[in-house]
């Protein structure tokens, strides 16, 4: 089976600015793929090149094996859901949804039938005659979705489609989108800067920064095993501690403190150790610590109550470590100024190069 | 598409065109039109001074010959000349004496086809051989008149000397409520100032003309407007006390005023303009035969009288005399003895009059 979308050595320049640099990416058929990164990282440009709104400066862009680099958007089997929805303000919901089919010169009965089905799918049949201005944000978003899906594209491109919605609605829509994607079985390419969104919905995630694709993987892999400092830092909360590689299984933190971690780098290299706050446990100085765990002693310098969890800042020779402990009956609280031992598993330790 | 190349191309075309035009501009040979009496060859574009012809005459002509007469107006000989020089084509124009000379020199006029104008014989003897067109090759007199001053006796008083001082002497004009109005015409207005200074209105000494310019400038505080169109109304409405203007318009306006005795028209003793306006056919005419027929029509005895009785200018048409209002005949008989001068073409000096009027006005 061919991949839905293949990018090979794609570079996009705007004047002197390189927006996307030598991108290689293959997205499988039926996959929910997210492009994640901060604004200006090139993810939207990549999406727009797939849609045909921008043309690559160099490189090859294929959709289902067909070279598409030069095709105008109207000749591509993809459809887009825009960030601002881009609903035609002078047309009704029905006309908006039927626009693509009309352009494809389908019969009017056929169009009416398919538009109805699409509106049923997004539960907006009752607003068919409304204009976009009369709809709420969430409803507009559904219209935009229906307008794209009604054409049964091979690939659906979504450019931060939930960005304009409020938190509750956004979370509900995330699940709905994921559901929908599984139901229709179309390849989704989803652009977002929201890591939660990407982690929740995606089959795979590609993290971009400054025009480069840094890491591609399933959500867990990206979260648990970032391969670069940027990916580690961008996704979730994380402690980044400078270290020096000792051997395959050991690195030395500041304060000459050795810990176990799988390194994969030559000894003597300066690296960064990345550990999620929720991976730490705090122990009393006299408490027994399980075998094989990494540990470092320090002083609690701050405690913040956060409802479901407590955050602790612990001053250690290796630097300030942020730890997160669940707010559960029976969990011991540490006071500011108290000595404690921070404990974590070697497997929870990612070693990343700069 | 390379715009720079297109630009260059456009400029090249333009340059060629300009050269072509400057070389080919002189071969506009005035080919005489061959017409017969009462022949018409299209609608008549008539370029005339405003309020210079009885509309009834035009309507009658249109009905008789089945053509349209489209009238356009100008307010000075110079304005008319500039239109013709720009290439706007008319079929009939009415330039004054000196302007006929200029237009002949410029090659702007079509020779008259005298076969088409049998009524030429009606022309009075005085107008058979004017100095600017001795053989009537290009023009034939339309009307004549004088340029003088209309005076509001209520505002000026009865005891005044008929002099250009009435408009140029600030000491005098300062007493006139509303001030005075002067014609917006280079030869007439500069000429009046020259006369007041004791020179001829055809004087071609630049120093004298500068003196005249300074004179107008000094008098300007009391000059309400430079106006060639509605000085007569301004006078009878009391807007101005003294108005510089043409005899016919003045007489008609005074005659129609609520109190005609309150006004008078005078010719300054230093000398005033006697002018003759003439009908002529410009070179670009599209309907020269209609134009000749129209000229012939106006030279008819009764039509000529209608013309004069409507605007009260002097008639050059001897045959019209029996049909004229006695008032007009008497008036122009009087002016025959006045101190008047005809404006002549001063050739290359001409341009100074327009330049200096502009300077005086500003």
């Amino acid at each position, binding site marked *: 089976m061919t991949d839905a979308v293949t990018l*090979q*050595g794609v570079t*996009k*320049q705007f004047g002197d600015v390189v927006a996307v640099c030598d991108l290689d990416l293959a997205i499988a058929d039926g996959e929910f793929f997210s492009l994640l990164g901060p604004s200006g990282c090139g993810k939207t440009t990549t999406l727009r090149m797939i849609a045909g709104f*921008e*043309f*690559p*400066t*160099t*490189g*090859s862009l*294929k959709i289902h*094996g*067909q*070279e598409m*680099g*030069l095709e105008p958007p109207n000749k591509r089997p993809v459809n887009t859901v825009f960030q601002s929805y881009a609903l035609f303000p002078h047309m009704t919901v029905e006309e908006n949804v039927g626009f693509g089919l009309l352009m494809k010169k389908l019969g009017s009965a056929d169009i009416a039938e398919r538009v109805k089905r699409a509106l049923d799918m997004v539960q907006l049949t009752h607003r068919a005659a409304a204009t976009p201005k009369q709809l709420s944000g969430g409803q507009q978003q559904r219209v935009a979705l229906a307008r794209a899906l009604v054409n049964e594209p091979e690939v659906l491109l979504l450019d931060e489609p939930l960005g304009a919605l409020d938190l509750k609605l956004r979370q509900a829509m995330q699940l709905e989108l994921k559901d929908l994607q599984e139901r229709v079985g179309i390849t989704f390419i989803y652009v977002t800067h929201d890591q939660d969104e990407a982690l929740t919905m995606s089959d795979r995630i590609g993290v971009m920064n400054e025009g480069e694709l840094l890491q591609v993987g399933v959500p867990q892999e990206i979260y648990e095993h970032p391969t670069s400092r940027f990916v580690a830092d961008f996704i979730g909360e994380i402690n980044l501690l400078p270290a020096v590689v000792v051997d395959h299984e050991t690195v030395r933190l500041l304060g000459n403190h050795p810990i176990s971690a799988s390194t994969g780098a030559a000894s003597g290299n300066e690296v960064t150790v990345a550990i999620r706050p929720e991976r730490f446990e705090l122990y009393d100085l006299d408490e027994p610590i399980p075998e094989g765990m990494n540990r470092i002693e320090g002083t609690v310098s701050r405690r913040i109550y956060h409802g479901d969890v407590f955050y602790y800042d612990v001053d250690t020779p290796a630097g300030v470590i942020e730890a997160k402990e669940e707010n559960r009956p029976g969990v011991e609280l540490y006071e500011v100024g108290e000595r404690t031992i921070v404990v974590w598993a070697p497997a929870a330790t990612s070693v990343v190069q700069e | *598409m390379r715009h720079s190349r*297109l630009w260059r191309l*456009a*400029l090249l075309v*333009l340059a060629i065109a*300009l*050269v072509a*035009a*400057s070389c080919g501009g002189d071969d506009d040979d005035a080919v005489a039109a061959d017409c017969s009496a009462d022949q018409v060859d299209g609608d008549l574009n008539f370029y005339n001074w405003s309020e210079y012809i009885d509309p009834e005459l035009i309507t009658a002509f249109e009905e008789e010959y089945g053509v349209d007469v489209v009238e356009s107006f100008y307010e*000075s000989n*110079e*304005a008319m*000349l*500039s*239109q013709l*020089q720009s290439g706007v084509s008319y079929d009939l124009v009415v330039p004054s004496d000196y302007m006929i000379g*200029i237009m002949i*020199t*410029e090659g702007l006029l079509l020779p008259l086809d005298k076969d088409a104008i049998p009524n030429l014989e009606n022309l009075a003897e005085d107008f058979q051989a004017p100095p600017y067109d001795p053989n009537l090759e290009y023009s034939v007199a339309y009307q004549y008149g004088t340029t003088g001053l209309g005076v509001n006796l209520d505002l000026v008083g009865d005891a005044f000397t008929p002099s250009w001082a009435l408009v140029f002497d600030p000491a005098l004009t300062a007493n006139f409520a*509303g001030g005075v109005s002067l014609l*917006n015409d*280079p030869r007439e207005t500069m000429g009046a100032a020259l006369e007041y200074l004791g020179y001829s209105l055809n004087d071609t000494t630049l120093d004298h003309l500068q003196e005249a310019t300074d004179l107008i400038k000094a008098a*300007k505080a009391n*000059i*309400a*407007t*430079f*106006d060639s169109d509605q000085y007569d109304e301004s006078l009878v*409405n*009391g*807007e101005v006390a003294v108005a510089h203007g043409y005899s016919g318009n003045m007489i008609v306006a005074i005659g129609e005023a609520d109190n005609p005795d309150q006004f008078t028209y005078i010719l300054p003793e230093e000398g005033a303009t006697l002018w003759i306006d003439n009908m002529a056919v410009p070179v670009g005419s599209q309907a020269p035969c209609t134009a000749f027929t129209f000229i012939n029509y106006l030279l008819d005895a009764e039509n000529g009288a209608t013309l004069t009785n409507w605007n009260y200018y002097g008639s050059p048409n001897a045959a019209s005399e029996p049909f004229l209002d006695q008032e007009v005949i008497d008036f122009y008989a009087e002016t025959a003895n006045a101190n008047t001068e005809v404006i002549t073409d001063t*050739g*290359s*000096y*001409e*341009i100074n009059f*327009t*330049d200096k*009027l*502009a*300077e005086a*006005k*500003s």
Partner: protein
Amino acid sequence: MTAPTDRQAVTPELEAAAERAASRRGVLIALPSWAYLSLFFAIPLVIVLVYSFATRSSTGLTQLRDWNLDSYARLWDPLVGEIALRSLLLAIATTAICLAVSYPFAYYIATRGPTARNILLVLVMIPFWSNFLVRTYAWRVLLGTDGPLSQLTQALGGEPIRLLFTNTAVLIGLVYGYLPFMVLPLYAALERMDWRLVEAARDLYADGWTAFRKVTWPLSRPGVIAGSILVFIPTLGAYVTPAILGGARTTLLGDYIVSQFLAARNQPFGSALSIAVMSVMLAATILYFRSGARNL
């Protein structure tokens, strides 16, 4: 559309080709208006430029030979300077009066509620959309010696008003004709303004006047500049208003240029004058765009 098999075969110039295609379409769409404006605007402009170096014959014909700079030399004539200065002063006075009257006016409209604002604005537009000549002519009726204003003052026992054919009349006419040009940009600038900034200034201990001086005025400056340019440029070359209300008594630039063509028949000098006036306006406009404006 054959798929490349290896990295060497990737299409290298996709974008360049697409841009060429788009650019070709753009040029095609621009072409008709480009051709029209080249023929009926750019070439006429060049002709005026060419004429300004030509000589005038004694009968006022323009001779396209003996090229010279006489017409430009004549621009330094004190007479021209006097006329230019007078036009300039008149244009500045008109602009200043328009600004002084319009600012509070636009401010008032911009601070009404949305409905009132729209009605008030339409009321500004209505006279503005009527024929310019008619509006100017109306002042001739109003200011005439036997006009309504004069009759009113006489009924009140005063002197008849003699404003017609004075510089004051021209000034009134110009202010009347161009006032909306000042009102609209000022209104646009004030309406667009974030009024919370004024509140912030008041919150930070500025009194009403200081808040205006430090916040409102600087923020409305683009409107002030746009309005001033839009009033200044046409009044500097005004022809119709002085002709109707000024009685041809004093010469202004517009009238002077027209008279060079229609009376003095000095096309080279008239052309040079036109070029000079145009250059001044071009400079003013460039200054305007330099000041950060993006649109007229």
